[in-house]
């Protein structure tokens, strides 16, 4: 019986991949960010990893390159998993989207953009998933304070605009000028 690493190895011929095994025994492939998409394509088309489990990131602040994008895939035929990691720098972090290979990764990539501010080039609708669209920060970055920066700013802005809206005094129960 061959190991996952042995089965995956032929599919990755010619790519600068450093493979290791994580603490809990998952095969982990360290690749340069530029080669990540090609690695994932081959994992899907040659090695049979047909499901994208998640796309996320790790912030290694203050180390540089700062972010580590992590993709995990599942082969439903062989019941085995593989993890792909790529380091990218902190100024204008961007990496190629995998939504052309796994359309279901769209939500994961949106969440990753929302929380870490990593752009996925080629993603058709990369907008915030959880935080309000007008939010300015990326909350899961290590230099973001956990209590937030002016957490009530968007609410207060909404509240102010709402209060400044003119009231129709012709309505029977509208508050009258005092």
């Amino acid at each position, binding site marked *: 019986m061959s190991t996952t690493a042995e089965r995956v190895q032929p599919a990755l011929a010619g790519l600068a991949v450093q493979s290791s095994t994580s603490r809990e025994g998952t095969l982990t492939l360290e690749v340069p960010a530029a080669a990540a998409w090609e690695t994932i394509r081959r994992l899907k088309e040659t090695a049979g990893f047909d499901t994208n489990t998640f796309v996320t990131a790790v912030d290694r602040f203050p180390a540089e390159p700062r972010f580590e994008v992590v993709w995990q895939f599942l082969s439903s035929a062989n019941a085995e998993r593989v993890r792909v990691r790529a380091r990218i720098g902190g100024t204008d972090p961007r990496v190629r989207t995998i939504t052309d290979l796994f359309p279901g990764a769209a939500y994961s990539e949106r969440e990753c953009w929302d929380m870490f501010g990593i752009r996925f080039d080629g993603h058709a609708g990369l907008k915030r998933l959880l935080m309000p669209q007008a939010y300015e920060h990326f909350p899961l970055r290590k*230099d973001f304070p956990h209590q937030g*920066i002016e957490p*009530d700013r968007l609410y207060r802005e909404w509240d102010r605009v709402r209060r400044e809206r003119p009231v129709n005094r012709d309505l029977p129960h509208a508050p009258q000028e005092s």
Partner: protein
Amino acid sequence: MGSLIETQAQPAQEGYLWTRLDELVNWGRKNSLWPMPLGLSCCGIEMMAMIGPKFDLARFGAEAARFSPRQADLMIVAGTLTWKMAEAARTIYDQMPDPKWVIAMGVCSSTGGMYDSYSVVQGIDMILPVDVYVPGCPPRPDAVIDAILKLQRKIERERPFAQLLSGDNFDEGKGSETFVRAPNQGVPTTRSHERLAPGSQVPTEGA
């Protein structure tokens, strides 16, 4: 009408008639509270149990939960209110007809609870006037029933006619704002964003 103006000028000398009428109106209000359940998390489950047959909120006349704020006069904020949800919560509150009351059910809606976080409102009194706070995570249904009884005693002390005659009647949002706590006022915590400016060095493990 002359007597009405006198009452307005001398609120201390309210007549027998007005105080009796106050009592009548308060008796009606306190025994027919219609809650607007804003179940935001696990507290919502306890709130359902409270309205259900075992704890039977109908004994206190407050079992008619309305999911339209137009038909409710008691807002029960049950659970974690996020800043994103705060706009919706405030809109629902504004849509409720006066007179209206608010119960902050559970530590999350009272103070933010364990969510000392960028996304959670640190107590709904930052955006709404609150009448009764209920501690607990989540509070038992009996605790919320106790809050409703306390609210009933609070309603007993209100003076609806004095309020009406003094002209301080139900201008939406007017009376409410004085009770609303400014952001984090009176919460003596060291805010981590004051200690840690963005871009500064984060202490790493073992350093």
